C-alpha cells in the first residue's frame, strides 16, 4: 500500500513538474498556452508548485525509516 501510494504521489510530482516547465513557456509567450493571461499562468504555477511540494513532503513522510534504537 505504501509502495503504491509512493508511486502515485511520484507521478503527481512528475506531472506537476512537467506542468511547471510548461507554465513557464506559456508565461513568456511561447506556444503551448491556452489563451490565459500571464498572471493566470503565474497563479497556476504557484498552485502547481504547492501541489508538487506537498506531494514530495508526503512521500518523505510515508517512506521515513524508523531509526534503530
Amino acid at each position, binding site marked *: 500500500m505504501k509502495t503504491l501510494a509512493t508511486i502515485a504521489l511520484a507521478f503527481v510530482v512528475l506531472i506537476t513538474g512537467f506542468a511547471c516547465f510548461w507554465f513557464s513557456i506559456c508565461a513568456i509567450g511561447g506556444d503551448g498556452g491556452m489563451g490565459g493571461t500571464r498572471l493566470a*499562468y503565474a497563479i497556476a504555477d504557484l498552485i502547481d508548485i504547492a501541489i*508538487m511540494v506537498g506531494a514530495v513532503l508526503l512521500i518523505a513522510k510515508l517512506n*521515513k525509516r524508523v531509526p534503530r534504537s
Partner: protein
Amino acid sequence: MFPYYLHLGPYTIHPHLFFEALSYVVAFYVYLKLRRRFGDPIVTPLRWAAVAAAVAGAALGAKLLFWLEDPHLTLENLHNPAYFVGGKTIVGALAGGLITVELMKRYIGLGTSTGDLYAIPLALGIAIGRMGCFLTGISDNTYGIPTNLPWGINFGDGVPRHPTQLYEIAFLLLLIPILYRTLQKIVIPSAAVTKRSEVTAKSRDPYPIKSAVSVPIPPMSNDEQPTTLSLKAGSLTPASFLPGDAFKLFMISYMTFRLLADFIKPYPRLFLGLGGIQWACVLTLVYYSRDIARWLVPKGRAVTH
C-alpha cells in the same frame, strides 16, 4: 529563421516546447532501460521518492537560480509575474535536484548513492533540450557573445554569435560514452536484492548485506568482509569508480563546462568576474571537491590518517 517553428501535420509547434517535452520523454525512457540493464541499488518506493525529490528540486532550483542570475533585473521585474514564472536555468535545476535528493535521503534514512542511473538520461535530455534553445534563437537568452569565427550564427539580431547551445550539445554527446563506461565499471547491486519483502520496518538500510551482491565476487578473507554497501562495491572496482561516481562525473563535467562556457555568454557578472550561474557551478564543484581530489590524486599517493 529564428525561432524555427516545427510543422507537424496541421500543428505548428514552438521548438522549445517540442524539444523540452521530447527531452523528458527520451530521458525517462533511457533511465528505464538503464535501470533494467544495470539494476537498481534501492527499492522501488525509495527510488520513486528520490525521483520525486529530484523533479521537485529541479523545478524549484531552475527558477530560483534564474532570479539570482541577475538580481537587478529581478528587482526591476517585481511587478511582472511572467518574469518570475518564465525563467529557468539548467544549472539551477541540477543543483536544486541534488540538494533536495540529499535532503530526502537524509530524512528517510537512506545512505546509498542514488544518482548513477540519472547521469546518462540527464546528459541526453539536456542535449535534446538545448536543440530547442538553439532553434528558439535570441529570445531564449542562451546564445553566446559576438564572434568573427566562421561558424558564428545570427540568431535574429543581425550579429554573428557563438552557438553555445551547439557547443553544449557536442560536449554532452561526447560525455555520454564516458558516462556509460563509468557506469559499466561501477558495481550496482542487482534490483533482485531490493525486493520489498526483504526490507524490514526497522532497518535503516533498505537491503540486507547478505544478499546485496548478485555479481561474481572474488573470495575474501573474513577481515576483508565489507560492512557497508559502498565498501563492498569499492572492493570490487578501482578506487576511482565507486557507486555514485557516474552521477558525480556528470555533475563535475557539466558544471566545469558551464563555468567555462558562460565566459562566452553575455550574462551579467555579479562578483569577481563570474555570473550567478558560474557561482552556482563553483559551489557545486566545491561540494564535490573531495571526489575530484580522489580522482586526481593517484591511489598510492593518497594520504591516510
